């Protein structure tokens, strides 16, 4: 997000304005009121006697509420600062705004207060890609309401604007004539309401709701003060990103502001995993929702296949008219495995076997998808190639930008692509599903079969992905089964899944901690030694906090305590320098060259799995694990993080505390 914009959000409703509070959308400035992937207001400009007030300060009180303090400071009628303006705005199903004008002068004044309003009803994809509209815009006015509308066949969206004070309402907006005696003030409340939502989402906005959410999470006490702030920021941002579909109970994390306030399979699952020791209910809602939309048929336009877990669900016009496939779109090769992984993690952490029983069919369908559709050519590895050549995703792994899967010389790998972390996820998913089959579904024969498949996969993976001359695993096998030989962060995910043989894992750890991959702030997505490396390339050199949180977690699980601690510390120090909120990604420049991590220009913030990264890092530092009955604590905390206490950790044990402090060995 631009530093010159202010955003407030609630679920998938959000308002992006300039620092005055005005909305003036343009091709280069994606401002507006957005809801259900549609812009419901693109113009909202306050003038007082034809002047736009100057901003004095912006008070971002809560994630859903902001206050702008301004003054009318120029012109020939008024002396500087005799007229102040305060605009208080809260987002919900639209937004509510209170405008307060205060006359600080000894003289009375007459004011023309005007709010210009307009809307282009752009689909979020149209905003992003600057596309033209296909339907008709219209406006309607009555004595007390302005309606801005858009119609394309049976797709109708409307915005209703009304005020608490009498106004002249025209197609362009609202006009108030105000007489202000000396030392008096005038207030108007404005309601901007978006028309009924397709999903029936329930806004969750309230300070009490946020406070309750934070209070329900474990309490953190630590000697390194910034961690307290980072932790609270993560919890509050996670609260902001909660999203209700209106179909399933509970809330799941949306992916990120501004472009990804929607259900995403991969993002919601990864975030749910990160938040497991803190808010396991997110996993439950995520699993239920994704199960509901699990693929049923073969549909190349949506890349849908039976058993596949969705990638993205959108609610805008282009989706409604099938100009885009997100209804839902299934172009993710990893979300199905992640679904199984999170299901087992959730059950082991919470003891909620009922959910595993409820989702047994979906889990079996997911495993069937891996074997039948995920492994497209039946070579034993999962690979991807889109069915939708027009608007589908080329890369269906988490590094989904076009140039992320490249050879060391920079050549883009031909499709289909079998990236290494996908194989790790399959391995992990099958072992975890085997555990559920044995312990919950009473199917030991299937458990044995899954375990045997996992063992075979591990054996073949270590043979066929290993690059002996470079001593790390290939990023992928390409369409011709060649090893894509770039050194990337993907190898870190192999530690998390456990698919790497011990000796090969050790070699990968050396690479991960080398100067080529570890910038000092975190592990880069691609090593600086590779030809495609670009420190501000989206997936070819930037540092992604969520990636690092899983690498740190994998290092802990593989026994590399000091390395995990080093990455955790670096990432938390970066978070501190970002004001407690890690962005989606930041520059891969070496720490030796920058005192601050370099911002990535279009990073989402807050973004769900970046918000979840500090949570998984804390889990990693304390070595928190569940054996299905007890909380296991095995801290590995570096100086200067000192002492960390996490109190009232929820799980199948009820609530438990964990303590850890730095030791010389760590």
């Amino acid at each position: 997000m631009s530093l010159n914009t202010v955003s407030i959000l609630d679920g998938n409703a959000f308002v992006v304005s300039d620092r005055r509070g005005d909305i003036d959308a343009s091709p280069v400035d994606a401002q507006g009121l957005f809801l259900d992937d549609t812009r419901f207001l693109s113009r909202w400009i306050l003038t007082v006697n034809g002047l736009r007030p100057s901003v004095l300060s912006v008070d971002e009180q809560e994630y859903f509420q902001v206050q702008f303090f301004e003054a009318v400071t120029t012109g020939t009628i008024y002396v500087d600062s005799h007229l102040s303006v305060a605009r208080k705005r809260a987002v919900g199903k639209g937004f509510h705004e209170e405008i307060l004008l205060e006359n600080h002068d000894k003289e009375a004044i007459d004011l023309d207060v005007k709010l210009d309003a307009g809307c282009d009803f752009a689909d979020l994809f149209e905003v992003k890609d600057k596309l033209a509209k296909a339907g008709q815009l219209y406006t309607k006015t009555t004595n007390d309401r302005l309606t801005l509308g858009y119609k394309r066949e049976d797709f109708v969206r409307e915005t209703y604007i009304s005020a608490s004070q009498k106004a002249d309402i025209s197609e362009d907006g609202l006009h108030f004539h105000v007489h202000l005696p000396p030392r008096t003030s005038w207030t108007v409340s404005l309601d901007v309401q978006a028309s009924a939502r397709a999903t029936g989402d329930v806004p969750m906005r309230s300070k009490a709701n946020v406070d309750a959410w934070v209070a329900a999470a474990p309490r953190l006490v630590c000697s390194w003060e910034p961690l307290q702030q980072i932790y609270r920021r993560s919890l509050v941002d996670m609260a902001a990103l909660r999203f209700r579909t209106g179909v399933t109970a509970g809330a799941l994390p949306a992916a990120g502001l501004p472009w990804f306030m929607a259900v995403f399979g991969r993002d919601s699952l990864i975030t749910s995993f990160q938040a497991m020791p803190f808010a396991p209910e997110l996993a439950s809602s995520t699993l239920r929702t994704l199960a509901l939309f699990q693929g049923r048929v073969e549909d190349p336009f949506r890349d849908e296949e039976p058993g596949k877990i969705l990638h993205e669900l959108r609610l805008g016009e282009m989706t409604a008219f099938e100009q885009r496939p997100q209804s839902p779109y299934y172009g993710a090769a990893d979300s199905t495995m992640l679904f199984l992984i999170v299901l087992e993690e959730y059950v082991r952490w919470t003891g909620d076997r009922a959910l595993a029983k409820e989702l047994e069919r979906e889990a079996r369908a997911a495993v069937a998808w891996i074997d039948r559709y995920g492994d497209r050519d039946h070579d034993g590895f999962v690979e991807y190639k889109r069915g939708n050549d027009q608007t589908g995703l080329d890369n269906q792994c988490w590094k989904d930008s076009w140039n992320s899967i490249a050879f060391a010389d920079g050549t883009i790998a031909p499709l289909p692509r079998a990236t290494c972390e996908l194989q790790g996820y399959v391995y992990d998913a099958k072992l975890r599903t085997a555990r559920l089959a044995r312990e919950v579904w009473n199917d030991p024969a299937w458990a044995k079969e899954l375990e045997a498949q996992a063992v075979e996969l591990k054996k073949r993976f270590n043979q066929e992905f290993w690059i002996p001359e470079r001593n790390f695993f290939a990023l992928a096998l390409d369409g011709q089964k060649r090893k894509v030989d770039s050194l990337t962060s993907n190898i870190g995910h192999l530690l998390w899944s456990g698919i790497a043989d011990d000796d090969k894992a050790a070699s990968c750890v050396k690479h991960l901690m080398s100067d080529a991959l570890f910038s000092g702030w975190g592990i880069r997505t691609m090593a600086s030694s590779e030809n495609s490396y670009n420190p501000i390339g989206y997936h070819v050199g930037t540092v992604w906090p969520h990636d690092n949180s899983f690498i740190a977690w994998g290092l802990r699980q593989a026994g590399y305590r000091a390395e995990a601690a080093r990455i955790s510390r670096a990432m938390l120090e970066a978070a501190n320098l970002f004001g407690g909120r890690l962005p989606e990604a930041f520059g891969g420049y070496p720490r030796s060259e920058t005192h601050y991590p370099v911002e990535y220009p279009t990073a989402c913030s807050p973004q769900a799995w970046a918000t979840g990264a500090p949570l998984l890092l804390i889990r990693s530092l304390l070595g928190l694990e569940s054996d299905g009955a007890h909380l296991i604590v095995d801290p590995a905390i570096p100086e200067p993080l000192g002492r960390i206490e996490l109190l009232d950790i929820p799980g199948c044990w009820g609530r438990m505390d964990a303590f850890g402090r730095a030791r010389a060995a760590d």
Partner: protein
Amino acid sequence: MENQSGESLATATEGPAEGEAPGLAGLVGRMRLMVGDTALGVLAVDNGRAKLDPDGPPVDVTAVVRSRDLLIGLLRGQVNPVLMALRAQGRLHGDRELGVKILYGLRAGSPFAQTQFDGKDR
């Protein structure tokens, strides 16, 4: 021209009004079928089987859609429920989670895929 008949779908069929629906395995419930204000029967789901009833005991969820043809498309598993909702062509009341499960489940194989409704082929 869309058929706007108010005749129950259960009685307007030639061919099966019940049968196996693999995508409905594990689901039990009843969905009232309506076009606007007109009730056109109940879809009774019982663990992998689906049956069209003229009416009967209380329902768990009600599907209200714009047209009879759209309703028939849903029963045949030919309509994407998400698109239907986005274009305001239909909505669910009551247990919406069950409703979505049923409508999605029918897409995986509907016993009504070959059923003639109102004397018309699919």
